[in-house]
């Protein structure tokens, strides 16, 4: 019983505390660099699209708000033919960013994306792709993956031996 009264007293004292909320939008929020807001698609250091259309973001998404279609250029480099995020469904959980094996999809500190029409919250690749490497500068997936997709020849990647000469029997 006493603890109840003490609780009530302590809660009552909160009347006089400084308020934790701020008067947004008059006063702007200070967001940290890793704040999980709007989703963007980044580019690799050479300016190429980082997204390889692996569908892992789509499958990780708990509200299934990411849809894409992978396609390839003549050199075998995968990229998304379209990449669509329905932000009216997005819950900004950041699972897509965690799932992304190429650091392509990233959540950035921007949340001011309200619209009067829900349809306007459907973002296509043009709306998502930014001209930056985002949080992970210097990473180029095709430099480390085994594929030859026009970025590097077979066997010239990091940690790779030159291609095997299959006509040789030497050890």
């Amino acid at each position, binding site marked *: 019983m006493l603890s109840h009264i003490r609780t009530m007293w302590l809660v009552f004292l909160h009347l006089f505390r400084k308020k934790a909320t701020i008067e947004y939008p008059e006063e702007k929020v200070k967001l940290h660099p890793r704040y999980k807001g709007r989703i963007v698609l980044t580019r690799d250091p050479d300016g190429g699209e980082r997204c390889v259309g*692996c*569908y892992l973001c789509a*499958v990780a998404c708990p509200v*299934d708000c990411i849809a894409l279609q992978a396609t390839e250029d003549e050199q075998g480099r995968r990229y998304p033919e379209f990449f669509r995020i329905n932000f009216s469904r997005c819950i900004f959980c950041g699972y897509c960013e965690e799932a992304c094996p190429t650091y392509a999809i990233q959540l950035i500190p921007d949340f001011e994306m309200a619209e009067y029409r829900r*349809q306007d919250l*459907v973002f296509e690749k043009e709306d998502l792709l930014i001209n930056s490497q985002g949080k992970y500068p210097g990473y180029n997936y095709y430099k480390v993956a085994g594929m030859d997709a026009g970025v590097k020849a077979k066997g010239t990647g990091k*940690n790779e031996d030159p291609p095997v*000469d*299959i006509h040789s029997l030497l050890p």
Partner: protein
Amino acid sequence: MPTIRIDDKDYEVRDGKNLLESCLALGFDLPYFCWHPAMGSVGACRQCAVKVFKDEQDTRGRLVMSCMEPVKEGLRLSIVDPAAKAFREQVIEWLMTNHPHDCPVCDEGGSCHLQDMTVMTGHDYRRYQYRKRTYQNQYLGPFIHHEMNRCIQCYRCVRFYRDIAGGEDLNVYAAHDHIYFGREKEGVLQSPFSGNLAEICPTGVFTDKTLKAHYTRKWDLTNAGSVCPHCSLGCNIFAGERYGEIRCITNRFNSEVNGYFLCDKGRFGYEFVNSENRIRQPLIRGRLVDAVSEDQLLEYLRHLTGNGNIIGIGSPRASVETNFSLMQLVGIDNFYQGVNEDTAFLQKRVTDILESGTLRSNSLRDIESSDAILVLGEDIWNTAPIMALTVRQSVMKTAFSQTVQQISLPSWNDIAVRELTQEARGYLANAGTSGSPLDKLATHHVQAAPDDIARMGYAIAAHLDPSLPPLSKQENELTARTGEIALALSLARKPAIISGISACNEAILKAAYNIAWALKRMGKEVGISYVLPECNSMGLALTKAPSFEKALGRLERNTGTTVIVAEQDIYRCLPEEQAEMFFSKCGKIVVLDVLHNRTTERAHVLIPSASFAEGDGSFVNNEGRIQRFYKVYAPENNNVIEGWKWLERIGGGNERIDQLHTMIEKGLSQFAGISTEAPAAGFRIHGEAVPREPHRYSGRTAMWAHLQVSEPKPHQDNNAPLSFTMEGYKGIPPAAIIPFYWAPGWNSVQALNKYQEIPGGKLTGGNPGVRVLNESAEPRGDFFTDMPEAFSARRGRWLLLPAYHLLGSGEMSMESRGIAELSPEPYLALSMQDAVAMNATTGSTMVVQIMGKAYSLPLKIAETLTDGLAVVPAGLPAMPVLPFGSWVEIVKK
């Protein structure tokens, strides 16, 4: 049934199996790579290690490869033993030292056996800090993509390609850790079964190139069980859809039909579903605006069909339901088969023989378990490729079982059995008009004219049954072989006879029957198979409707008759002039079809009908097995619905397939059992339908958001116990409605093990499909005695015969780019002697004269062709339809 002790618990297992199979059958998750239920064990990958204990006192045990260890009564083993687990993890770790870890751009990712096994063993970090081995890739044709870096050297690909499919152009090269699986030189894989490499390969070395063109992960596909529409075998398939397009075809196991493998036509022939050439809009031609709404169309058609002067043309590629609905709409007397007189006559002979119940109509499994096979006059390599593959397996297995009997060796011990068997083969005799890749396997192979093949058949029967008159004259060398063939068949326990109608010769069918009946009277467990041209040829033939040419006669008597053509291109079954004559005598022409073709151009009313992927229905395969295929997805365009639904709508009938099946059973007793081919639409498991989409299906709320941000209501399915969503029963459904293979921890096609009673055995609860042609308990029959005259070449005239090409002869499959690329150009084949006599060489332009029309074709010299025969490819889009089986004049231009 021996009892084995796994981790201190007793289990009953089947005798004669290895430990790996037995553990998998019991539901244990034991990793493996090189073992495959259809290929046996070689013990190459060292992945399935378990610990086996000598006796109850043994505590140390020893590590063995479970795939190489036979089941023994009282055997004690441990799967979870720490040493065994560590061993398995280490094997994976070694394999992964060179794996490129490029799963994001690998088409296998998400349905990858290597991923599954890596997770299963617990390996998760590459400790090896040194460099990875790399390889150059090869171009392997339009179907298969090669990415050699991903290889884990399990040898499954070459074992399948060479041992199972009999291909020779894929092999293993180089040595030690550099071994390379590929072709000697870059180039198209020659085997028509190369597509199976995509499923056989446990990782992403060989992947489906057509899927790559519009890549979708397995978890994103909307799937349903379906039946391949490209030949009469009715192989079971899964079709996967995404964004309103069919994306890939994978094998659906049915131990009595296709087993584990599909041919390339079946696997890659799906692109017609997505074709630009699809009919998508109902049209009434000759109006100001051709395109009409459904209501306008139905009103017009009801008016048109109301007056009674109407006939219907059924189709061998339309479902049983569509043919039946058409039959109902126009009346049973006004329904005709959409095949020419010759084909209808031959098919009637086939159905008469099979319906008499005298002989067992062989399933592919029956053929596989036969110990002597005679192929009479059918080029099954091209017209029924999976049957050819099955014949190959049968021939190999017969030899293996002889080997196994000589020394005690388990039959699953693949490499040892093959080594011992060497070149020995089971008995196969292959008689055809032209050579076949099966000839390499055959003990006897014969190339002759169809009549001579038939005579040979009659002669074999005469050898087997003394009541038959022997061959009057031993006029040529092939009759000399009949004795040997007859002897081999009579020594067999379970001989199988295969024939078909592609040689356009009735006598061959009769001869095949005679042989089988003679063997039956000898007490053999004999079965017969007749190969037919289309996926539902048997279903159409069983309706017993008169042929298309009978309709022609009728049109001549009654003018102004309305004709409804259901899914058949008349120009493909009749020579052009006859087709033109047909259309000129019709009143209004109503055509339902999938793709635009020359017949649809002639239609006054054109109705889009659903392909196998967008519709529900059933096909009857050559064996007489009714098999259900399910709508994979509901197209955006709601004009595209099944032919039977359109026809039912015109007649104001029902649109429930279950009710239609009841009516079919009532109306056509030969289809009795069609209502039991699959669970009814109302079937539920714990109140839930079976989802077509895997539980990880992604993009639900974004797929169509660019059109409308509110998600559409999921399409409801009134004709199948399947839902178009990811919600529903997650366990293993009845075999007929399995939409895809998935089990916890098993994302690849290898999850199939969980759906079978034992690995490689039948599906849990029985294979789907209902046989309508059954052997009677007391078979009675008579021999045919009308042996044809021997073939003799005529002067200046040739017997025109069709050559079927697996990649090229299919009407629908030619819409696939890869198949079109690999299909042959039109040609005319003559024997060397005939060519020389005409002073022609390969490439010379020859002119075929038929009924006053001349067709120019380049010459191809066929070494093994009999003199007096002329062979042209059948069914190529660029080829005119010629009267096969008739005598034609050929001159050199």
